[in-house]
């Protein structure tokens, strides 16, 4: 009861002392709203509030660190597959060429993106390039049309907003089962069946290294365009020098070849994009946990200052109360 009396006395003097401590904390730009009426009736920052904030930031740091490790292990698994699949589409390019500049009427842009977020900017770059291709093609002539085939939720969300009428096919949840060639070839089959095309342009992020992902466009031409380009000479001119074996007509064989090329290129593109996604997620989660660490340091400083200020305030109250009683 005596302590309570001392405290009551101290309260009259406290407003003279505490403004200094309060302004010190208020100058910290992050916490203008942490001031409140504590249970003692003295104006001071509540340590409870800062402690809660620290707890949540620490949790965020733990989660992002765990996500980074998960992404790293997934990356390792998929990276070997990707490197093995790279050898497959190179002979096609050697034989049929990769002609991004081929002049065609019906372009189909196949945009490959991820289903889950928190992976940095790779999906935005893919969508930007797809939109750029669309604009490029429509700018060169009125009868040219460009359609989209979208793989992955993130691109779907972005492209559905402004290009809804140009979308032919949307495929999501590609990575539910581990990626394998059979699944992708079935997908490629679906696309070839349902979409009319003269040229297919596959947009994806090529995995150069854990920190570098390059947006790339692979072009697969339909058989008629291949014949046309072969006749006009140039890179595809030596296609005719090959004698074709296989029991069917040359046209049918070229058709089979083009379909096989498309599914191989798709397989490689999907794997590379998955690798890039995991790599981008790793670096995004890494910078996120580092930021959380920084924030935690700042909060710890604030917490200590708050704690010391409240202890000082209480001491001053008690001492001044005691001296008031004496004197």
């Amino acid at each position: 009861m005596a302590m309570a009396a001392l405290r009551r006395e101290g309260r009259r003097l406290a407003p003279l002392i505490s403004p200094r401590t309060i302004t010190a904390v208020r100058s910290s730009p992050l916490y203008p709203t942490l001031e409140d009426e504590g249970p003692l009736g003295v104006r001071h920052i509540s340590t409870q509030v800062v402690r809660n904030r620290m707890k949540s930031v620490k949790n965020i740091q733990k989660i992002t660190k765990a996500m980074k490790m998960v992404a790293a292990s997934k990356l390792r698994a998929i990276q070997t597959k990707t490197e093995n699949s790279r050898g497959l589409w190179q002979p096609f390019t050697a034989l049929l060429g990769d002609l991004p500049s081929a002049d065609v009427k019906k372009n189909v842009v196949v945009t490959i993106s991820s289903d889950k977020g928190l992976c940095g900017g790779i999906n935005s770059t893919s969508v930007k390039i797809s939109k750029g291709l669309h604009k490029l093609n429509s700018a060169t002539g009125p009868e040219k049309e460009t359609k989209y085939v979208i793989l992955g939720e993130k691109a779907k969300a972005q492209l559905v907003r402004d290009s809804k009428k140009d979308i032919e096919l949307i495929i999501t949840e590609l990575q539910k089962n581990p990626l394998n060639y059979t699944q992708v070839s079935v997908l490629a089959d679906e696309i070839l069946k349902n979409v009319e095309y003269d040229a297919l342009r596959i947009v994806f992020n090529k995995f150069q290294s854990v920190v570098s992902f390059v947006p790339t466009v692979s072009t697969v031409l339909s058989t008629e365009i291949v014949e046309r380009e072969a006749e006009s000479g140039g890179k595809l001119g030596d296609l005719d020098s090959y004698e074709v074996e296989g029991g069917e007509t040359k046209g049918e064989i070229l058709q089979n070849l083009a379909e096989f090329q498309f599914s191989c290129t798709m397989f490689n593109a999907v794997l590379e994009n998955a690798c890039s996604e995991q790599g981008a997620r790793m670096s995004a989660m890494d910078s996120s946990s580092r930021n959380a660490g920084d924030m935690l340091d700042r909060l710890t400083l604030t917490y200590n200052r708050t704690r010391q200020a409240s202890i000082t305030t209480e001491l001053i109250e008690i001492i001044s109360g005691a001296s008031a009683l004496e004197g």
Partner: protein
Amino acid sequence: MTLNLCILTPNRILWDSEVKEIILSTNSRKIGVFSNHAPIAATIDIGILRIRLNDQWLTMALMGGFAKIDNNEITILVNDAEKGSDIDPQEAHQALEIAEANLRKAEGKRQTIEANLALRQARTRVEAINAIS
């Protein structure tokens, strides 16, 4: 003049070294390829590929794809391939029996086609083992 053979599947590179001669079964017939062959682009059916290194013959089971022969470089791209020595004889025979049973049970066009395909693949694998021994 050595012939360089490269066998690629979507999952891995199966072979990448020099050989003396290969016998390839395309959709229409079997062709033998030596060095300095004329350029050819061929489709490969589900069947066996025989490779000769010096005096030894090796067999591989291929599950359909393409071959490009050009300038002493043979590139074979297939959906799947297995070396004859890697196939377990027991398991291959069992797979053949299961495939035959499935074919007899199959109803409807799609199941019959799938069963036929599985049967040809199983048969090729059994042939690959037998061809060595």
